[in-house]
């Protein structure tokens, strides 16, 4: 079991990360939260401080994570504040409008920048830190969208797929250092990111449910997790549809 007493959250103001933060605080954790929007980050930190006991430290920093130049400072500051780092959750991301990306490669690049390259930059620094300390867990929210390219959102899918592959390699490398690398594939979650979707049906999970799954996976040092069990089977099925047939489908 990995202990999660001191955790860094990137994209802390995301609905999923916020629920994760609350549950970690309830379990006695100290947190360092990085978020882009200053108002939302302040509201989050104030809330966590009210929930936390007097021994717990809740701190954080505002940062737009596409700005790679700040990553090293953020990680140093977090380590300084927390003393030591048991775990990291990288949760930030954006869901692009696929058609907009088709019309404009600049948009596509921006999405890949946010969803993949900014995360890879953080992971590069974190991997070295964790490798050195020879323990801990790094979790990243990827997506089932990264399991197979589909016409409806292949830019997002490609970015998340890049993460999933990168994390596989990193897991392989850090296994020797006793560091767990967890890829989270939440499926559909009812959050602001999916505000415009029709959320009827059993495929939708709530952020607090996903948060619970994330914490469990981090504690147990899982590899790739689908939060709701059936997504594993749905994606297994989707991945095995022959390409010659798949290309004619509208998924």
């Amino acid at each position, binding site marked *: 079991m990995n202990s999660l007493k001191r955790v860094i959250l990137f994209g802390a103001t995301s609905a999923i990360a916020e629920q994760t933060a609350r549950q970690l605080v309830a379990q006695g954790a100290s947190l360092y939260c990085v978020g882009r929007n200053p*108002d939302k980050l302040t*509201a*989050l930190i104030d*809330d966590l401080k*009210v*929930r936390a006991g007097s021994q717990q430290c809740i701190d954080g920093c505002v940062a737009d994570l596409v700005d790679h130049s700040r990553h090293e400072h953020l990680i140093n500051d977090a380590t300084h504040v927390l003393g030591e780092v048991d775990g990291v959750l990288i949760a930030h991301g954006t869901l692009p409008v696929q058609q907009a990306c088709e019309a404009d490669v600049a948009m596509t690049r921006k999405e890949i920048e946010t969803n993949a390259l900014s995360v890879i930059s953080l992971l590069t620094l974190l991997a070295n830190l964790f490798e050195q300390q020879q323990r801990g867990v790094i979790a990243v929210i990827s997506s089932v969208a990264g399991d197979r390219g589909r016409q409806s959102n292949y830019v997002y899918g490609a970015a998340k797929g890049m993460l999933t592959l990168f994390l596989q390699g990193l897991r392989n490398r850090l296994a020797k250092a006793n560091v767990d690398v967890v890829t989270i594939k939440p499926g559909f979650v009812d959050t*602001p990111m999916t*505000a415009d979707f029709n959320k*009827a049906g059993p495929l939708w999970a709530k952020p607090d449910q996903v948060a619970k799954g994330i914490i469990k996976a981090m504690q147990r040092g899982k590899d790739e997790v689908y939060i709701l069990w059936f997504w594993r089977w749905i994606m297994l099925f989707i991945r095995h549809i022959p390409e010659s047939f798949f290309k004619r489908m509208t998924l």
Partner: protein
Amino acid sequence: MMPRSWNRLPRVDPDRVELLTNRSQPLDSNLPRPLLAYGNGRSYGDVCLTERGTLMLTRGLDRFIDFDPNRGVLRCEAGVTLAEILALVVPRGWFLPSTPGTRLATVGGAVANDVHGKNHHALGSFGHHVRALELWRSDGRVIECYPEEGNGWFRATIGGLGLTGLIRWVELQLIPIQNTWMWVESQRFANLDEFWTLSRRAEALWPYTVAWIDCLAKGKAQGRGILLAGQHAAAQAELPVFKEGSKRMLFDPPFSLVNGLSLRVFNALYYRQSVKPQGGLSHYVPYFYPLDAIQDWNRIYGRSGFYQYQCVVPPREAEAAIPALLDTITRHGEGSFLAVLKTFGPMPSLGMLSFPRPGTTLALDFPNRGDKTRRLLDKLDAIVREAGGTLYPGKDARMPASLFQSGYPEWEAFKDYVDPDFSSRFWQRVTS
């Protein structure tokens, strides 16, 4: 799924439903008008509904802002539920100063309906314990409201039915407790006469009192029931262990499971339950929130929903009006699952449209049988009106405009505080 109110009546859909998650974000000027906040839909009726425009869901505004465990002062966003507050403050020795019979209401909803609890005679209603709140108006103005200020925004917003703008946060004064238990005495009374005597005595001694009555009993037994009196338990060396269970109503029956037969059986059994005149300990959860133990219990009434009817009649009229109401109900062959009787204390409410006022309040629910039910409710209205009483907007889907206007004489002055971009189906109904 479209947001509904708790009694599932009326079924009206707004043009747009918007989840608010960031309290610093100004109201979006592109949202279709009118606007209305929706907390957790625990009102029975249409104060939280609009047929047009945008319903703004506030449950995403669920953050605590500040808590001083030494003074018991809590500031939180308006979408925080009472259950979430209790989970935070009870372990630190504090409790809500006033609470309705559900802990699933939000703070914003509790302010907007100026809700009351079993301790109204001792501590007043929810609004009496609000130290400050922040109101967002559609023109971009942000108004911090305090009870001691003179300009009226506070008085308008407490019990303001969500019409004065969006409440972003609320600061509450909590009350101290020693542990999570209540000391409760229950006592049977054989009729209304006994109730009046018993409840007067209980109110002088206990901070919490409420009575359940068997609204089917007639003649000499009319108004028989059980009075529950309680107080927060004193510090003690040994306390029982409490384990919370939860059940859920899983489906919508094709017709109401509340009918003549089940009502008769339930009421008769309830009256015969064992009482504890010598007192006993009860955990605060089952004591304050017995109905919350069955999730979605409102589905028991089936798809057509039900009506809540909660009136208050002034002290001088109560002893005549309450029997008249019960007579009318039994003559109509109707009954209510839970009929709740409680005396409000003399403390005047702070809100211009607050429901609580000195007198006796009776709350009933009736399965919706269409015109038949509405005819009964019209007859009850006549008795309430005659007695100079009024109905609770938070539990109303049908009262005529004239009854609202006579019961809330400040409603015209209140209009000056209504945000021009806000409205509800309730407000359109009672002001037209």
